[in-house]
């Protein structure tokens, strides 16, 4: 349908790629303007403390300091938040987590700004920190915030909640706190405007949500708060919340000068919400043949000090807690609570990775109890279209869960990797010097589904504006305006592909994403290809209608053609062609009469909130994934090497195979990280490892090549039949690897990430997961 290629379905290269490989792409932290000041943030060292007094006088007196702001300088609403505004812009009377912003400064350079921070005196009265999420709802627990300690409770009851099958398995599982660890730390450039407003260039996931919160806190009308997306170096959920945006705007307005506010890596770890740590208990029962009868779950998610997106994360966790399995009876209970730990919110998978770790461990355990193969027990129970999910929602669209599992199980297994490569391929690599005879191999499987788009009645629409005109050289050109945040996922490529396909024009330009057009919603929830892709497609179709109607009218075609021009005319390869006849007119000639422009707002189908029993029609759609992991474990050192990963995924129609591959490989790697190395550790509420030295990310030496099979059944109600693809593989990679480790060492691993001390016996070891393992102190 396109001119010279570049339409949907092709491996089109990123339009921002040449600048990125040359180092010329400007990330938010690279922005520099004349007269710019450096903004920095002062943070609480205490997880909980009363603020008696803040004295900024000495800091203000320092030469080179242009502005110091605290809670007293917030002109509008004192608090902000994605769902509920419970987080102070700056702590005023009480700090609730270690790292909470207390003040910010703008100075001529970063060095002076740091000196100014050191000169601010804050008189804290430390209070006992509440850091155990299972204690904060107890009678007599301290109330940590005027809104209370409970963000949300969901008590989902489905079928006969106390129905039981003859075979039962139950256990506790613990998931640690993962960080998004995007590579470019937070940054923004705020500039005060002559009209009394403020302009921000910022790396974010959702420009319009930022603007709404900024306007409220700055006491400005929204049209005086203008945001433009700066280059975003990854996000993964960690830029969905406000971090430094309001602080930067306050500083710029106070100083009357542009301020670039930026975090370093430590501040980035402290500054944005993380993935919720979880404590979970599951009980599964089945018939002796292996058919699930009931699933019971109790989930405690630690939301940390402020709400962020905790209520929505819990809804995802509870509604996905039984996994993509048919179960007649379910009681799924969850709470997400406030503590004095770091705030938690959105991260890739959004509540689903945690429960997948639980339900997949349970399915393996059920297989053990039944004497069935782990794949077999899953195949017996996968949901099919028409099945009723635990929420009462009927699974409408095809979900090839069975097929995925069969595909991934059929992939060839890797050969032994004992003494090859001079030891590189053994656990720990060369430095660990594993003894090959003490290495055990294991294979594990995981299956999951993940909701797509926002849930529970949220209308997360997306707006796009498309203009078709003639460029200076007389060639037709499409210009797309969308506020969709490009964070690396490749919307910039997809949008151009869609326009080429719909309008038959080669030359497509994407305007910078900003608040000069309507909201595109958040770049999260696997939603932008569907939602903003749908908006671009709709706007292109409207442009085509208008141009073709104009052409039909001026050509004297029948009224029926003018009224519905796309039934008999279409745009292809730079021309307007009739349904039967050959070329009629060049698009360029048709545009001589003037440009054509249209705006389109795309909505997904409406969903409903959950009722008091957790019942409703909460999710727009689902995507499924199945992973098979193969690991080698050094049973003396407790080191794990992930030898191979196979993934079969429910991808819908593929718009760009290059981008798809990048998403599923990246998603797998983040799940691998959570399985064996990534954990933000807190001690009494304080993060003890907020650096890349201590928070380990998978490297090229840790992540094996992905054996990937895409299942491309179109999603019925989505544009082109697409599905979002980034989240599902993150959910399954972790439990597949953990299952493989269990199989290798014969221990009931209940804690993720799996640490060396969980795999080898150390004297005096104890912890939340406890040394309760049974069945296999001796490696198999």
């Amino acid at each position, binding site marked *: 349908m396109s001119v010279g290629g570049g339409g949907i379905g092709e491996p089109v290269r990123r339009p921002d790629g040449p600048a*990125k490989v040359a180092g010329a792409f400007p990330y938010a*932290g*690279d922005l520099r303007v004349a007269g710019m000041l450096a903004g920095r943030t002062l943070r609480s060292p205490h997880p909980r403390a009363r603020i008696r007094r803040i004295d900024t006088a000495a800091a203000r007196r320092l030469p080179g300091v242009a502005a110091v702001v605290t809670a007293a300088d917030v002109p509008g609403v004192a608090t902000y938040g994605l769902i509920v505004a419970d987080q102070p812009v700056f702590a005023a009377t009480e700090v609730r987590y270690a790292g909470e912003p207390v003040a910010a400064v703008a100075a001529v*350079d970063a*060095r002076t700004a740091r000196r100014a921070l*050191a000169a601010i005196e804050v008189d804290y009265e430390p209070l006992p920190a509440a850091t155990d999420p299972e204690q904060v709802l107890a009678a007599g627990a301290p109330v940590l915030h005027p809104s209370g300690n409970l963000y949300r409770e969901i008590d989902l009851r489905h079928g006969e909640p106390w129905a039981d099958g003859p075979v039962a398995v139950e256990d506790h599982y613990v998931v640690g706190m993962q960080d998004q660890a*995007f*590579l470019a730390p937070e940054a923004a450039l705020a500039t005060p405007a002559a009209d009394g407003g403020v302009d921000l260039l910022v790396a974010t996931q959702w420009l319009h949500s930022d603007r709404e919160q900024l306007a409220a806190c700055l006491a400005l009308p929204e049209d005086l708060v203008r945001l433009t997306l700066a280059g975003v170096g990854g996000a993964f959920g960690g830029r969905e919340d406000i971090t430094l945006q309001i602080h930067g705007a306050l500083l710029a307005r106070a100083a009357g000068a542009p301020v670039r506010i930026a975090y370093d890596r430590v501040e980035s770890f402290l500054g944005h919400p993380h993935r919720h740590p979880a404590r979970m208990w599951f009980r599964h029962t089945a018939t002796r043949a292996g058919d699930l009868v009931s699933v019971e779950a109790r989930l405690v998610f630690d939301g940390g000090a402020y709400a962020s997106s905790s209520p929505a994360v819990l809804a995802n966790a509870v509604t996905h807690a039984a996994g993509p399995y048919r179960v007649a009876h379910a009681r799924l209970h969850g709470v997400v609570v406030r503590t004095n730990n770091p705030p938690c919110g959105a991260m890739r998978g959004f509540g689903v990775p945690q429960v997948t770790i639980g339900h997949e461990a349970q399915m393996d355990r059920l297989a053990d109890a039944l004497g069935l193969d782990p794949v077999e027990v899953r195949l017996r129970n996968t949901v099919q279209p028409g099945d009723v999910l635990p929420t009462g929602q009927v699974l409408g669209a095809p979900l090839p869960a069975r097929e995925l599992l069969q595909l991934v199980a059929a992939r060839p297994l890797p050969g032994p990797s004992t003494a090859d490569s001079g030891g590189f391929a053994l656990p720990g690599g060369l430095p660990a010097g594993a003894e090959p005879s003490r290495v055990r191999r294991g294979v594990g499987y995981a299956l999951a589904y993940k909701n797509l788009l926002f849930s529970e009645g949220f209308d997360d629409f997306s707006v796009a504006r498309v203009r078709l005109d003639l460029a200076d050289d007389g060639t037709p050109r499409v210009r797309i305006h969308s506020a969709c945040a490009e964070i690396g996922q490749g919307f910039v490529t997809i949008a151009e592909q869609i326009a080429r396909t719909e309008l038959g024009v080669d030359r497509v330009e994407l305007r910078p994403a900003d608040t000069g057009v309507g909201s595109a919603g958040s770049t999260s929830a696997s939603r932008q290809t569907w939602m903003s892709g749908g908006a671009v497609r709709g706007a292109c179709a409207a442009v085509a209608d208008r141009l073709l109607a104009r052409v039909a009218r001026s050509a004297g075609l029948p009224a029926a053609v003018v009224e519905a021009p796309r039934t008999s005319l279409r745009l292809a390869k730079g021309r307007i062609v009739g349904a039967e006849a050959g070329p009629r007119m060049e698009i360029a000639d048709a545009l001589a009469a003037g440009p054509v422009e249209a705006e389109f707002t795309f909505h997904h189908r409406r969903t409903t909130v959950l009722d008091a029993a957790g019942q409703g029609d909460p999710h727009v759609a689902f995507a499924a994934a199945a992973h098979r992991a193969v690991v080698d474990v050094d049973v003396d050192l407790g080191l794990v090497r992930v030898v191979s990963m196979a993934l079969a995924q429910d991808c819908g129609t593929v718009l760009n195979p*290059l981008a798809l591959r990048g998403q599923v490989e990246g998603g797998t790697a983040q799940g691998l990280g959570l399985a064996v190395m990534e954990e933000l550790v807190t001690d009494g509420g304080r993060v003890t490892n907020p650096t890349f030295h201590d928070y380990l990310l998978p490297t090229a030496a840790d992540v094996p090549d992905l054996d990937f099979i895409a299942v491309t059944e179109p999603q019925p109600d989505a544009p082109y039949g697409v599905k979002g693809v980034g989240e599902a593989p993150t959910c399954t990679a972790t439990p597949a690897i953990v299952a493989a480790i269990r199989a290798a060492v014969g221990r009931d691993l209940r804690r993720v990430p799996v640490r060396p001390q969980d795999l080898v016996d150390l004297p005096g070891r104890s912890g939340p997961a406890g040394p309760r393992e049974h069945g296999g102190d001796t490696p198999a």
Partner: protein
Amino acid sequence: MTTGPGPGPVDGEAAAEEETYRLYVDGFPRTVSGAWVGDSLLTVLRDVLGVTTVKDGCEQGRCGACSVLLDGRLAAACTVLAADADGARVLTVAGLGTVGLARAVRAMFLAEGAVQCGFCTPGFVVAVTDLLTRRPDAGEDELREALAGNLCRCTGYGRILAAIRAVQRDRALADPDDGVVGSGGGLARPGEGVVGSDGPAGAGP
């Protein structure tokens, strides 16, 4: 709490200790003055000289986003004292050039989908170009071990490794006897004339 390593001294440190020195950055001589003696090469490049083709991801030498060639050797700019590099030739991705091996690496990163957010990309292009210059036929394990100092959070490394293999394949096909630097000298080395005091005098990027 003020956190992390940051540019410049705080109270109690020797704020007045500043030096003037010279760096040859991407072929251009640059005079550094007014920087604190303890500033890293990364801080001086980005915050004093305004060279943003080198990225700041961790300031601990762990992420590789600030990978540069320092007198021809791969280094994390955040772990080098800028004042110690007085007189050194510093190549960021921009100075590697757009011909030869560096061009091939860039092109294959694009063709194979190795770029997503792209923040790690400049460091990766430097590290990969350096690796393939020294070890053009590096095998799978060597590639993975050698690049373990460069973190990527988006790609899971699959497309990056595919790009590297594609470069190796193309170059093996193009010229089995291809030398270290390749046609056109994609990777400049000390004394080869691409960088140094004979570069464009006094010009800045």
